[in-house]
């Protein structure tokens, strides 16, 4: 595990500068919005926009980052170091995936702390309309875990596409796009094919999971886990495949 954590630390350290920069930008946007609201130039609702902006933008940036972190290894020839390590390929990929997930968590935490500092009155007002602090923590944790799962899946697609593209000498961009397309299709088909196997799992009602009845909301969403499990297994298989390809089939340029 020490080796894995050393890789993880390396990937996190390499991202420190952009991570700090983005955190700074998010905080500055919130501060600026706070000042405008205080001056009466912008309405109170602008606070919501200032908090939402990083939340929308960050996952996109992190997906780009998952591509960049691999591209830089090739561009700066440090992939020579990674490929000669006596490690299974999946550990190298898992370290990169874990780094992205940690960066996401850090940026979310910065946004949350920024919101609490700069928009305390608005947050307090919103809290008054919600059942309890425990309810907020519980539901935010669920949303966080769900979004983290979606982000991790997307990162796995990107990693596979990148590694496959490095197995060919030409049209690497085209190969990467096709790999993205095919792998997402594979996951979708596998989910549908395996759905009958998992029908015994009860459909999860989101209003119960989130306890929306406490808000007296009438909207009911349902999460059909039976069709999701096959897709998750497919994503896991793609991750394992990426590790194998990275360790045994990828070449540095001649």
């Amino acid at each position, binding site marked *: 595990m*020490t*080796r894995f954590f*050393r890789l993880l630390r*390396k990937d996190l*350290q*390499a991202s420190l500068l952009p991570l700090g920069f983005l955190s700074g930008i998010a905080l500055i946007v919130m501060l600026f919005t706070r000042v405008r609201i205080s001056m009466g130039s912008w309405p109170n609702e602008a606070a919501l926009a200032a908090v939402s902006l990083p939340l929308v933008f960050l996952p996109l940036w992190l997906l780009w980052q998952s591509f960049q972190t691999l591209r830089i290894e090739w561009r*700066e*020839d*440090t*992939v*020579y*170091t990674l*490929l*000669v*390590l*006596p*490690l*299974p390929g999946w550990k190298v990929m898992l370290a990169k995936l874990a780094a992205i997930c940690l960066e996401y968590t850090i940026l979310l935490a910065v946004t949350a702390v920024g919101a609490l500092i700069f928009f305390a009155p608005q947050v307090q007002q919103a809290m008054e309309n919600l059942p309890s602090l425990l309810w907020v923590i519980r539901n935010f944790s669920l949303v966080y875990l769900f979004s983290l799962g979606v982000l991790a899946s997307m990162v796995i697609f990107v990693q596979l596409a990148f590694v496959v593209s490095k197995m060919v*000498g030409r049209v690497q961009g085209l190969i990467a796009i096709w790999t993205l397309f095919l792998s997402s299709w594979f996951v979708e088909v596998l989910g549908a094919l395996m759905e009958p196997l998992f029908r015994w799992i009860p459909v999860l009602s989101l209003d119960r999971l989130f306890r929306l009845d406490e808000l007296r909301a009438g909207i009911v969403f349902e999460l059909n886990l039976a069709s999701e499990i096959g897709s998750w297994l497919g994503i896991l298989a793609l991750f394992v495949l990426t590790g194998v390809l990275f*360790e045994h*089939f990828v*070449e*540095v340029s*001649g």
Partner: protein
Amino acid sequence: MSKAIQALQIRNLRKKYSKVEALKGVDLTLPQGEIWALLGPNGSGKSTLLKCVVGLVKADGGEIEIFGDSPSRRRKGQIAFVPEVENLYRWMTVRQAVDFTAAFYADWDGARVAGLLEFMGLDQNKKVSSLSKGMRARLKLVLALARKAPLLLLDEPFSGIDPASRDRIVEGIVRQFKSEEQSMIISTHAVGDTEQLFDGVVFLDEGTINLQGNAEDLRNQYGKSINDLFKEVFA
């Protein structure tokens, strides 16, 4: 009678990059405890040969045996490879680069590394990006020589290096090499200053071996130094 296990045995190794045939059936044997030079001009296939051994490129055909075994993850961990390219993380300090490498190899010798850094004149607090090319080459070598790896493969360790750094690197290799435990291949086209290092030489040209053998035998057979022989073969 049991056959002696060689450090490295390569048979009929072939590699093609799209239209270029980089290796055309190379056979090579590196006896244990020896330093061999892989000599040849640019594009002769030296780097490709070493990359095939460490798994950075996949051979199209032929066999590679490392201490009698096929290449594997375990065998990979027994090779200290110095690539021709600069494979260091530039944002790291020298200390971080050392710690990072140390974490992955069981044969890392912590006691050896401090002496090597001092000998090579490397400041542990300096960032890799702030080092000169010669100093970065020294650091790459430190990261390889600080290991008690049974097989060392150095790809062009003197390429583009000033004479002072080159001498230091040669001296570093001589000081650290343990012939009873280690074997080494150095690919280079700078033969002059390094000739005294080699027990054997391989002349590689356009993916084919022109000449190979024990360095002393070749000197006696041709009546000239390896450097002169190199000039003659690749003139």
